[in-house]
């Protein structure tokens, strides 16, 4: 879980004008997110997003995905995986252990990302990680009618599941997933609404395996993992 890592970063950089805002994409609401938040005791804002509003607004298709926003409220990095990597795919699916080599790759991705954040906090717009507008625009996914429709089906689906109309709800969630197949947030939330443990179960791993050589977390081209 990333909440404690972001807390460490806030303690280090909060006095330099830096604030994490954590947003939990949890249709089951505050009660689902509570144990993790209470364990991490974040002193930065840690918000509950039952309807995946932020996912829709910013085009976030998974977790952890982050956007960097400068002091003027401008986006300086578009949604991208926040210091993680596909190394988790090598996890032992029975005991959830990770071989040391894969663990190091994951740690390398995290360190590179946190160092990039530190560089931005220290150097502001002069940081090479604060991207020029043209580059942010190039990386931003266009918001299409199909995406708008997918999110509308998702909204109907999660509401009906929560209202106890599971079968109809899952039908609309299926439609959302079909329209936006790259959203793991849709897939995993739909499984989780069906059954709390299902988002990390065999269906999840089968879907990850089906990616083959495709990525679960896109690589961030200008923040490559470092060796640890």
């Amino acid at each position, binding site marked *: 879980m*990333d*909440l404690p890592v972001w807390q460490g970063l806030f303690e280090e950089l909060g006095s330099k*004008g*830096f*604030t994490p*805002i954590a*947003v*939990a*994409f*949890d249709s089951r609401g*505050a009660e*689902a*997110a509570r144990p*993790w938040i209470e364990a991490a005791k974040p002193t930065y*804002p*840690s*918000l509950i*997003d039952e*309807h995946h*509003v*932020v996912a*829709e*607004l*910013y085009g976030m298709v998974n977790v*952890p*995905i*982050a956007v*960097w*926003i400068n*002091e003027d*409220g*401008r*986006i300086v990095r578009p949604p991208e995986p*926040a210091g993680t990597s596909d190394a988790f795919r090598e996890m032992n699916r029975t005991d959830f252990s990770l071989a040391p080599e894969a663990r190091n790759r994951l740690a390398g991705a995290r360190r590179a990302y946190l160092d990039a*954040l530190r560089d931005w906090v220290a150097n502001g717009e002069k940081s090479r990680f604060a991207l020029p507008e043209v580059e*942010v*625009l190039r990386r*931003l996914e*266009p*918001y*299409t*009618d199909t*995406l*708008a*429709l997918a999110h*509308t*089906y998702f*909204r*109907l689906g999660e*509401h*009906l599941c929560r*209202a106890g*109309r599971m079968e*109809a709800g899952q039908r*609309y969630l299926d439609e959302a997933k079909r329209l936006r197949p790259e959203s793991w*947030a849709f897939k*995993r*939330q739909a*499984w989780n609404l069906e059954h*709390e443990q299902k988002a990390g179960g065999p269906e999840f791993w089968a879907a990850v395996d089906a990616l083959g050589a495709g990525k679960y977390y896109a690589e961030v081209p200008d923040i490559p993992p470092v060796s640890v």
Partner: protein
Amino acid sequence: MPATLLTTTTTTTLDHARSDGENLWVPLAELKSAIGWELKPEGACRGDQCVPIPPGREREYFSEGRFNVAALARYIGQPVVHDAESETWAIGEAAGARNSALRSLEAPDFTLPDLTGRMHSLSDYRGRKVFLASWASW
């Protein structure tokens, strides 16, 4: 049966609305309290945004003291989906408006609660460098 209207951020029960096919008819008197729209001489208005009702198509929008909220949403490019069995309607966002807002690179504002129910807006943190990050319990 009352209808339920979902937007990106709200859930509203409409006690006196009537669903019929692709149409959601809301009594004129409830329009403002239910969905924030009101009818003015210049059209259907929400805040300072007014949408003129397309001339000659009034019958798609008005019937027996009710206004067709679904027709208006479709007219302004918002996706509308509904579950007939439970009379639940969801109205999404117009892609064009969302796309141009996002491509202005002005970070879109939002307001969400923390665990204690206290509301936070992104704009409260203007003047700081914000690392806006998603996570989930699942």
